[in-house]
């Protein structure tokens, strides 16, 4: 299945902004992070389809996963 990973801020360095990742059926967000070589400690905000998600969430084909390092402000 194809997952669209959207990376932001420092996570783009060496990876790019938007990545189409081919993963096995049943793969989780953690599998996607491993594929992209993103350490869990560098992930502060994680959204699947714009909603909060956990690392063990099982992905489905076409999911959009947005990943942010610790950033923010106001």
């Amino acid at each position: 299945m194809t997952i669209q990973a959207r990376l932001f801020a420092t996570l783009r360095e060496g990876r790019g902004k938007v990545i189409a990742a081919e993963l096995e059926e049943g793969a989780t967000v953690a599998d996607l992070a491993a594929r992209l070589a993103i350490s869990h400690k560098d992930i502060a905000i994680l959204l699947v389809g714009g909603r909060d998600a956990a690392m063990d969430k099982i992905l489905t084909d076409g999911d959009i996963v947005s990943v942010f390092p610790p950033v923010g402000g106001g």
Partner: protein
Amino acid sequence: MYGYNGKILRVNLTARTVKVEALDETKARKYIGGRGFGTKMMMDEVDPSVDALSPANKLMIVTGPLTGTATPTGGRYMAVTKSPLTGTIASSNSGGYFGAELKFAGWDAIILEGKASAPVYLNIIDDKVEILDAAPLWGKVLSATTDALEQAHGGKARILAIGPAGERLSLLASIMNDRWRAAGRSGVGAVMGSKNLKAIVVKGSGKVAIANDDALKAAFAVCMTKIKENGVTGTGLPAYGTAVLVNIINENGAFPTNNFQESVFGKAEEISGEALAEKYLKKKDPCYRCPIACGRYCEVDDIKGGGPEYETIWAFGSDCGVSSLKDVIKANYWCNEYGLDTISAGATLAAAMELYQRGLVKKADFGDGPELTFGNADAIVEWTKRMGKAEGFGAKLALGSYRLCDSYGVPELSMSVKKQEMPAYDPRGIVGQGLSYATSNRGGCHVRGYMISPEILGLPEKLDRLDTAGKPLWTKIFQDFTAAIDSVGLCLFTSFAMGADDYAALYNAVCGTSITGAEFITSGERIWNLEKQYNLAAGIGSNQDTLPPRLLKEPIPEGPSKGLVHPLDKVLPEYYSLRGWDAKGIPTKAKLAELGVD
């Protein structure tokens, strides 16, 4: 006294007299300083029903006990007055260097009363205070005003001033300091303009007395470690400033677009913090003693200066449907030059665009100016200038979105609370932030209780942004905590990393007191209740604790928050109950007595 200088400067502009008064220590301890102490002085001295732009209103420039001390971000001041925009108490916060310099000059606060018969400015060198002719400065933008005053009084002077917008009594006028730092909101600049006061120049040679230097060093070290190790204050804000929120809020489907008609902006990437850092950022521009340094300094074409912040990028960007970051930076620049609140200015243009979209505003209304259509980048720059000058249709814009929409018979199209424009988070997708907007004592505002922190950023812990459970309590605690931070003289951004005990430790070391973190938050609750009392006396009832009908009735049309409206009726009653207020949102006598609000 420690922390406080013990001295207040009272300036009567009508009589052109200055007076030195002793700080009421008991009152200061009870309401801390800044926002709290300023509100208390307003309550004691200014009838809440006063016309905000009349000489009977007063403008208070108030520091906190930690302003000008060796604490992280200890340079803030508050402009406290009755707001001409909302009719509520106003307290607008600013950083830069002016607040600390005022403390070095020996003052805790300046009370400005009356109205000068012609434009004047104040020149303060320690305890020497002069009221000088400002006729040559009147009409000048911020850079020209600051240049002229620096030339007259030396480059080391710290300068606070209004621009042409404040002079022309725009209800969106800010008070600026250090060129592009802004006490931005609630029209405080118009109050200064109504007094014919153009600027305050200050130079100080003293320092703030500290009760316990060793304890301060220890508390400082603890706080600095927390700020440096926190991902937001230690890494995210220094690298990207606040603009990094563009993508975060857009990905959550809560990024108001086209005057809150939509909540996802397809071109968010083009106006993002990442794009800003890549294309236009020249350097960081930190405030006094700030280890975070979120301030940006950008250059575009022949324009250079501070900002833009996230809220500004949203207001002139997605809220106006504009994807040209270059033109957003220009609009921000002109706001700083004319002394306009970037949030309300951009949001008012967005409201005008919807009025035009609906055929209520006609093309002829724009005169020779560009059409205010969503996405028109030239229009945001040109109309910001005309708003600053109150020229043509710009004079209507200068009164804010509520009065603009009301003049066309559709006040509900103003995306405001208590007539002040809401910032850059769609409450339909973020429940606690919506409650915080609705109940804010100064109208639509994100920094009266920044629920984005737990609901989006996960600080201090992650809450589901769509849950209603627990949100009233979180909102109340954030509001109270913020009121205390706003009063002590530190930047709210420290609260991403620091807890109540940390603020109490800094306060105790500086002032020689022994308050607890819990007492610090209770002081904030006391301030919140005092503000509410002022508003009620001013005729701003709790029936105004609400959101625009669009946000309560029209579901978000697309994106991750599709289908949502704000469930205010499900959270407001519990909020009032947790506050110890009655079902109509009025503080009970018992609650006021418990807090000692008098």
